């Protein structure tokens, strides 16, 4: 039955990791705006204009 000590320890550790993940998400502002991203994902993909350089990757700073 001693294995229970280990299992309970692991289960609590996993739960703590998810709690920490929630804290991180909340701190980094992911829950601040829950409406706009739902619209944003419906926009069509952009076809890069030949006159301009592609700079969509900079959006993730």
């Amino acid at each position, binding site marked *: 039955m001693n294995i*229970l000590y280990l299992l*309970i320890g692991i289960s609590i550790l996993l739960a703590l990791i998810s709690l920490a993940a929630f*804290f991180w998400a909340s701190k980094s502002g992911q829950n601040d*705006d829950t409406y*706009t991203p739902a619209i944003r994902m419906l926009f069509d993909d952009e076809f890069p204009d030949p006159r301009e350089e592609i*700079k969509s990757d900079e959006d993730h700073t």
Partner: protein
Amino acid sequence: MIKEKNIAQETQCYHCGDDLPNTPYLLDNRSFCCLGCKGVYQLLSNHNLGNYYAYNDVPGQTQKNNSSHFEYLDEAAIAANLVDYTDEKVSVITLYIPAIHCSSCIWLLEHLHQINPAVMQSRIDFLKKQVVITFKNQELSLRKLIEILASIGYEPLISLQDVVKKQQSDHSEGHLIRKIAVAGFCFGNVMLLSFPDYFGLSALEQEFKTFFGWLNLAFAIPVVFYSGRDYFTSAWTNLKNGILNLDFPLALGITVMFIRSVVEIIGNTGAGFVDTLCGLVFFLLIGKWMQQHTYHHLSFERDYRSYFPVAVTLIENEKERPLPLNELKVGNRILIRSNEIIPADAILLKGEAEMDYSFVTGESIPVQKVLGEVVYAGGRQLKGAIELEVVKPVSQSYLTQLWNNEAFFGDKTMIRTFADRASKYFSIVLLSIAIGAAAYWMLHGDSTKAVASFTAVLIIACPCALALSSPFTLSAVLSIFDKNKFYLKNTAVVEELARINTFVFDKTGTITNPENTGFTFEGDITEEEKQWVNDLARNSGHPLSRELVKWLNRPSKYTAVKYMEKVGRGITGSINGNELKLGSASFLGLKMKSPQQGAVVHIIINNRYLGFFCSKQQWRSGFKDLIFKLGKDADLHLLSGDQDQDKQTLIPFFPRAQQMHFAQSPQNKLDYIRNLQYSGRKVLMFGDGLNDAGALKQSDLGIAVTDNINNFSPGCDAILDGASFQKIPMFIKQAKDAVKVIHISFAISLTYNAIGLYFAVQGMLSPLIAAVLMPVSTITIILFTSIAVRLYAKKNQLL
């Protein structure tokens, strides 16, 4: 479908959807109502942003009245106050843009880098109507950025309030959510660890009992000291001020539960009440979170500062330069352009002043000022540019003084909710039962039972369900009101609404519909002559002329020649060979026997007097019905800043003529409300402009009525969309029903408390009973309140 769309496009502006004039502006086979709309389209298509029109039909805003100046943004001091972050390379700014309304707006504003590559990133928060822009400040100045936004029709609203006080961030909300997360996490784990004990452990598993107990205790510590901390501080501060609110028995219950659990687990005498404790804190915090419902797109705390501009144009040594408003001093010479607001009381030095004071006084007709006259702050200049000399500092001007009125500081008492009043008695009764039970067992010489019963009473009677009944009921009501376009500042306003017995109405803009002015014509006029009037009045920018043209509603046919306008008095001109004169009686040299009601435009064609157009205000739809319903069991009053020209038409609505007051200054309104309150009345004020702001604040409940909730509205307790004006009696009924629901749910939770107390006073409360009773009572309350409120809302036709 495609055909229908084409027809719509032929009569509507491709950009903003307004009706097209006779000769629309054309580009790429699209028609536009004005040069502004065409300009925006051209700019967007040049930058390959045509998709803007693909996501929504007519996504734009009309560009007809666009004349803003942003020179002041070049002032380093002002710019520094506006940006969130800046270094040598990049700046970040958050802007509030009222025009954001559809997905096209999001798409366009997040592709600003296609218009100017110096914009690195722009993110929209749609509900808050905010955009966060990161840009390279070496290549693009703040002023340039704002001008780009304005040029595509998304002019941000930059007001003095932004500079004075940066918008409060929602840190508190984030904190609360994290506290709930911790409490929920611990609650779940503790429940799992407590189950084995409740179901009974075999002899083999006894060794786990202490292990689980210690783990439970470890989980209880963050719940008590992190999640539940606010209850201790709140109970303590209230106690110091001599107030017994619901936080006191809650804090007491949490403390007793924690101490007893620690003693039992360390002494190995029992399992403790850790899972009840965690569940209690978890549910309480959820109730608190429900109560913190906020409207991100609305502001209830606006004052004159959000109405005033950030800077004015100062004239110094024959040169113009922008000056931050807080540096404006007496004696400064300022330039006010058309459509700008006078920021401080000043003397008119140059130009023709025609002031629209509708926001300050409620009087809708513009006021003329001659050279040398004092112009009060808050007016909006309608004609061309004028020059003024400031005679009073901004903070001491007529309008701003209304806010600095001492009446607003501390005088307004906090709304006393039912829960606040009930909790006082609840706490006293609870303490006496606990002490009584302890004393009883002491007398019988059983000190263990005395301690057990004393703590058990405090644990089981911990008013969790009681504390939740108000938040859940009221937040359900709030969301129902929200669907009906009635936005309350907080949940306590619902209870206040149920207590109101006196209604005070402002007239202009509140009970009249600002967008619906009608005219009647007294005299004889032919259709052809109406056409001439229309074609002449079309040339004038005066509000009355514009209203008249809008009302006549016909295309122009002739061009006016020899057109002349005497500002604010009348216009003359020749249409199709006929001499026309329109304007006031004195302008036309007429002698009228009695002054007419309302605003009047007299008509003379070819030296023959035809009669006059008389503007009459239209009541909001359902006004008559509303007055009838409200008047049945409440007192109705009317306070208007206007002259009493509408008195006769209002008498059927307000039968007691002494309760109608005209030509009231903002201060008069405030005093009137205060007098009503002194005679013991609960006053609700409906208002719309800055002139009502004092009265709105003074009244027990101030409601701002507005036709566009994103427009400016004065500080108030609730904002009502004009479209829902006739629903007011239903809202009040619903508020009263909500209070009823709270009373019933109090009774229900007291019943649960009584059951628990039956076990507790006998000193035989087991953790299992507590662990069952607490969640069951809580869930009963949540279900009962949300269902009952919705049933009542159906009955009141609000759902």
